[in-house]
């Protein structure tokens, strides 16, 4: 089984890399070059597409706009989801299963029609065109997701850990912050990544709730492209660059992930 898995991994990585390689070659070629001929290795590589992005303030401001609401959203999601996931994993209470499932149903709303009421709701409370509006709207799916992922992992931590802390005379806040959260740091890392990821790539809500001052990168991408009649090269370069913040997140999360739960060190 293990050797099968290893081979699957190798082939899957090649499968992953080929379109990514194609994205990179597109980013290094001009538009007419991309549509004009097929070549595996670009014969006239150019950095013009990247230069276009770095010289145009619309692009890097949009980058900052995206980061501001994504970071805000991730922080809010983790902070409210941690206590909720803990109580779901440790107690039964009135309506717990229904609530747990209801949380997930919020991911299921097909966006096309829901966008209008979202716009009306956030306009009426004066949050339209602020990073907070997008951050709160994205909480609709990142918070339930965080609760679900964290609960899944926390349920795997035996409740003896809680009891041991109590016997050792630790207060609940000490137990929760100094023992329980460190045990679950792998889970928190995974959750953090998924919140960041879903908020970062979400397009429709972000487009609806932002105006000219807070336009995020995903929206600028669709607009710049349609204005100049689809410039594949610039779009590919922008696509390659949008991956960077997420990779930084994975880089910091990975060591908590591979350490696993490390129950022995409690």
């Amino acid at each position, binding site marked *: 089984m293990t050797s099968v898995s290893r081979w699957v991994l190798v082939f899957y990585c090649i499968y992953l890399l080929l379109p990514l390689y194609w994205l990179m070659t597109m980013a290094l070629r001009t538009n007419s070059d991309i549509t004009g001929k097929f070549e595996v290795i670009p014969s006239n590589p150019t950095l013009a597409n990247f230069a276009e992005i770095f010289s145009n303030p619309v692009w890097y401001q949009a980058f900052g706009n995206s980061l501001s609401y994504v970071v805000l959203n991730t922080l809010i999601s983790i902070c409210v989801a941690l206590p909720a996931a803990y109580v779901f994993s440790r107690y039964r209470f009135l309506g717990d299963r229904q609530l747990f499932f209801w949380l997930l149903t919020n991911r*299921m709303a097909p966006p*096309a029609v829901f966008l*209008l009421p979202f716009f009306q709701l956030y306009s009426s409370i004066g949050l339209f065109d602020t990073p907070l509006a997008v951050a709160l709207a994205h*909480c609709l799916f990142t*918070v339930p997701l965080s609760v679900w992922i964290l609960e899944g992992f926390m349920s795997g931590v035996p409740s003896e850990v809680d009891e041991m802390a109590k016997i050792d005379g630790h207060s609940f806040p000490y137990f929760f912050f100094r023992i329980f959260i460190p045990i679950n740091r792998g889970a928190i890392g995974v959750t953090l990544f998924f919140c960041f990821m879903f908020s970062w790539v979400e397009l429709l809500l972000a487009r609806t709730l932002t105006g000219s001052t807070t336009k995020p990168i995903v929206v600028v991408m669709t607009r710049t492209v349609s204005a100049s009649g689809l410039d594949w090269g610039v779009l590919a370069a922008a696509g390659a660059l949008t991956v960077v913040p997420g990779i930084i997140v994975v880089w910091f999360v990975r060591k908590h992930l591979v350490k696993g739960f490390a129950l022995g060190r409690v």
Partner: protein
Amino acid sequence: MAINKPYNNRAWLGVLPVLLIVAFSAVIPLMTVVNYSIQDILDFNSRFYVGLDWYRETLQDPRFIDAFGRQVLFSLSVLAIEIPLGILVARGLPKSGAWTSVLLILLAVPLLIPWNVVGTIWQIYARSDIGLLGVGLNELGLAFNYTSNPTHAWLTLIAMDVWHWTSLVALLSFAGLTSVPPAYYQAAELDGASKWQVFRYVEMPRLGGVLVIAVLLRLMDSFMIYTEPFVLTGGGPGNATTFLSQYLATMAVGQFDLGPAAAFSVIYFLFILLFCWIFYNSVMLDNTVGDNEARYHD
């Protein structure tokens, strides 16, 4: 969720912040859409109550039924590939070392690319004149052309979705696998367990929770897929890859039929809800995974 947990209604204090923050964005828009769905809205000043007419009309619309059938087929296909593939990839990943970091980052990359760019990559990549995949397949002697052949369009969409989303299953499964205490593997080795038994009785119980999340996420998101097929095939050739979201978008945005589109949305929402509810309940009522774990340790 485990069964032998103490009953304590004070636990509500812990979930209250989550409830408030989610309800804020959830309840009002949903109610507004339900409200639209029972009215004929000519403009915002002249609207008439029509009851359940839009619902009846949507459920009898042959184009809705076709799109629904295609949607179910698509979701089942990608789930059937992505879940087993994701588990295998996660098991293949080394548990520590430099390669782990490199591979984790590689897996994360497709998830971080904006969806319209994912569609664009595959649109070019699969083109039979200028794309690596398209040209490559034609070199192998297959007359591959996803813009004219419906089957090829389908296969390209599924290949794209597998490329885009298997990582989600793999990353969640990997996180689940790292939570298996090494002692369990040692115990299994001492007992002379086969590789399949190790997977079934040592790894699966730990994976159960995250796999439920992975299946539900992929079920919901594949059922609502919009941006990528919109960019890649535009629903074509013909209507071959027009899924529910795309049909809905032409109604809501293209024709501005707010009432019927709202009824469509509510039906759409209820179907996803139903599928997830069936899956969730069948998993939660089925406690055999926990039993197996207990039996193994006896």
